[in-house]
């Protein structure tokens, strides 16, 4: 990926989209292949080191810390020494991007609505200092269409700041404005191209409709 690029991975359930993200972020060790960031080989590094280098992963289903307040959840995203020192500045920055998160900062995460949780999860990912690439796993999962629109409006805001985005989605509906799409099937890239090329292709329709 080029810096600041917006790339999406699509594919049906259970075909390895999430595994790609988990491998890139250090939760899983690849049996073969290489993960690199800005030319540096980060394969097999512990997750916290990878996050420190600016590659953060927002897991599917937001995965907030339920018994912690929104503010504490954000502080947890600023764990590295540098990020911790800059946590107040970064929190303000994040609150400007997500005014709805700011309104809830004293609330326990478990009391939030689905859309708010997703926003806090993305905000937590941005609390690491110098985020270069934000990977978001199915930001639309389990949300109502109206809420998804709001989430994608916020994702568009993040894109304007120059941070690279790697999104995983099942439905191509929300990612029509990205730079590139990869279609994953059985853990392999089946197809890649601009959204227009991929979405108009017959193969994609088959992958989705099982035809």
């Amino acid at each position, binding site marked *: 990926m080029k810096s600041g690029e917006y790339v999406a991975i699509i594919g049906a359930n259970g075909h390895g989209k999430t595994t790609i993200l988990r491998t890139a*972020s*250090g*939760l899983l060790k690849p049996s073969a292949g290489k993960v690199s960031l800005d030319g540096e080989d980060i394969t097999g590094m*512990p*997750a*916290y080191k990878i*996050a*420190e280098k600016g590659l*953060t*992963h*927002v*897991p599917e289903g937001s*995965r*907030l*810390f*339920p*018994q*912690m307040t929104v503010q*504490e959840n954000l*502080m*947890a*995203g*600023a*764990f*590295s020494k540098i*990020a*911790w020192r800059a946590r107040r500045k970064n929190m303000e920055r994040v609150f400007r991007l997500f005014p709805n998160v700011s309104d809830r900062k004293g609330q326990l995460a478990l009391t939030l609505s689905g859309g708010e949780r997703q926003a806090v999860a993305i905000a*937590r*990912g941005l609390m*690491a200092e110098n985020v270069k690439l934000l990977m978001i796993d199915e930001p639309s999962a389990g949300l109502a269409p109206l809420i998804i629109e709001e989430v994608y409006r916020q994702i568009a805001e993040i894109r304007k700041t120059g941070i690279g985005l790697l999104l995983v989605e099942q439905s191509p509906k929300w990612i029509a404005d990205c730079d590139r799409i990869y279609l994953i099937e059985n853990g392999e890239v089946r197809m890649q191209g601009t959204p227009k090329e991929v979405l108009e292709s017959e193969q994609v329709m088959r992958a989705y409709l099982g035809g």
Partner: protein
Amino acid sequence: MVDTSLILPPLLSGIILGSLYALMAMGLTLIYSTIRVLNFAHGAFFMAGAYIVWWLNTPASALYGTSLPTSGLSLPLAVAVVPAVLIIFGLGAGTQRAVIRPLLKRPSPLITTLVATLALATILESIATLIFGGGRLQFANEIASGSNRFPPCGSSPLCRALGGLIITNAQLVQLAVAVGVLVGLQVFLKRSRYGIGMRAVAQDLDAANLAGINTETVYMIAFGVGSLLAALAGFLLTNIVFLSPSVGWTPLTIAFIVVVFGGIGSVQGTIFASYIIAITQQYVSLFLDTSWGLTFAFLLMMLVLILRPRGLFGFKEV
């Protein structure tokens, strides 16, 4: 009229004892909820911390005619407790790094770590016996003597109605230190980098890893801080009674009761349960023999578990 002297003094001593239980049990909760290790060496850290304070504090002249070692420094207790707590912090963090961490990567870590900490407890107990002998030791204690009447109003009618509570200097120190440390611990857990990290790891390990938290270091700090709390409780409790190599087992048992009773992993539950158990124990031993206190604590725990299987404050795991 009800005799208030039967009601208030056990309540007061229960509150003081409960604060010490809370100190001990919080250490266990911290270690369990972040690392998922049932630390059977917790009582041994309680004991070891107390021995270190004793070694630094007791003047050689107090041991005339025995071969027991002291540092000869006869540091004041308030000073002696600092290195003791730091050493036990290091011992706890080192245990996590050297003993627990390798086991966590293998099958059935809950059992293997349990047995490993049990072994560590036995080793520490043997070392203490080797150095200090198996007998009971006492602190040559500058805070053990002296007491205050509470409220400090002499023999006025109000005072007598309150039962004219007696609180010893040692109890005052216990209460102040325990409550102070518990409050400090809350601030640590809510504000500090490692406190937040510990809570995050306890609530969702994967998400904590992705949030950029260095979980291995968090584990070490959690084990260190947990052990440090045991050491502090050890000094505060044994300083007014006695010290022996096996002195940590009863507090360990009580801490386990408290943790299960309050709801495993719950901070508020642990603190609340500490006071309930301690106060119950005090009232029971007022009417029955002292040894019944622990039995009743067990009964109380079983009753709560029948009614609320996750303990008083236990929350459902999501």
